[in-house]
């Protein structure tokens, strides 16, 4: 008899903690690639919540996994375009730090 792994709340709390860590990294890091990695963490937290709901709520069986697979596909597209944009900006500005991308502010 398991007291933790058989309930839904530990998985959802882990998902929430992971999303909060990712949001902190997105807000606080200076490097653009670190921000993209934080976005990947947040997307994985959402995946974990969807899979937990799909596993524990009987009317959602199978839909959680389908939702997670679609999120993985969208995350792959997001990572491709995001990293290409970072490389394209780096070619012009010679820095990956986002607080030095201030051309439009001056």
């Amino acid at each position, binding site marked *: 008899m398991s007291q933790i792994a058989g309930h839904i709340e530990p998985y959802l709390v882990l998902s929430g903690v992971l999303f*909060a860590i990712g949001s902190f990294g997105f807000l606080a890091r200076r490097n653009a690639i670190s921000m993209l990695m934080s976005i990947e963490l947040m997307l994985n937290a959402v995946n974990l919540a969807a899979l937990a709901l799909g596993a524990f709520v009987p009317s959602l069986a199978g839909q959680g996994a389908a939702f997670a*697979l679609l999120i993985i596909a969208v995350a792959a597209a997001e990572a491709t375009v995001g990293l290409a944009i970072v490389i394209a900006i780096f070619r012009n500005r010679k820095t990956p730090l986002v607080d030095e991308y201030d051309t439009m502010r001056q």
Partner: protein
Amino acid sequence: MPLPDVLPFIGIGWSDVLFLLLSGTVVAAAFGVVFGRDIIKSGLFLILALGGLAGIYVMLGAAIVAGAQVLVYIGAISVLILFAIMLTQSKVAPTSLAFQTQVAPAAVAAVLLAVLFGLAFGSTNWGSVVFSDTPSAIGTSPVAAALFGPYLLAFEIASVLILAAVIGGVYLAMEPRANEGNEEGE
């Protein structure tokens, strides 16, 4: 010699131990991603976090998603991120200042977000079942029935989106031609 059902002295089952180990690994690796000074180490910690999450997906009975996680995230996206790190790290960029000036408000916002999530998750009646062990494996048939039934349009749009992202990524990361880049004045 058979293993006991619960861990001695603590009284929690083996699946609980597995969940605690995996979730501890994931959270520690996520902190490593966010707080690491060296961005290469951040990328390697990201791989560790994604691997631990694949284990938790297997515990939730979704082995197909765990396989996709290993193939797509660990195999493709992590390699892409590591290549981008190698392409964008210049020696003039200071590695000591990893955080912006807004780090304190960001920390406060993240802690508030975690507390809000905890309160909402604890006080909501999810109508969920409680398993005596980990959730039973769902197999691939319900996933396929959902993916090619109600989510068929989303599936097709995702395929078009990936094609567009591949073409857009190649176009964005391409070196500009010599006769087109003359207005930059460098």
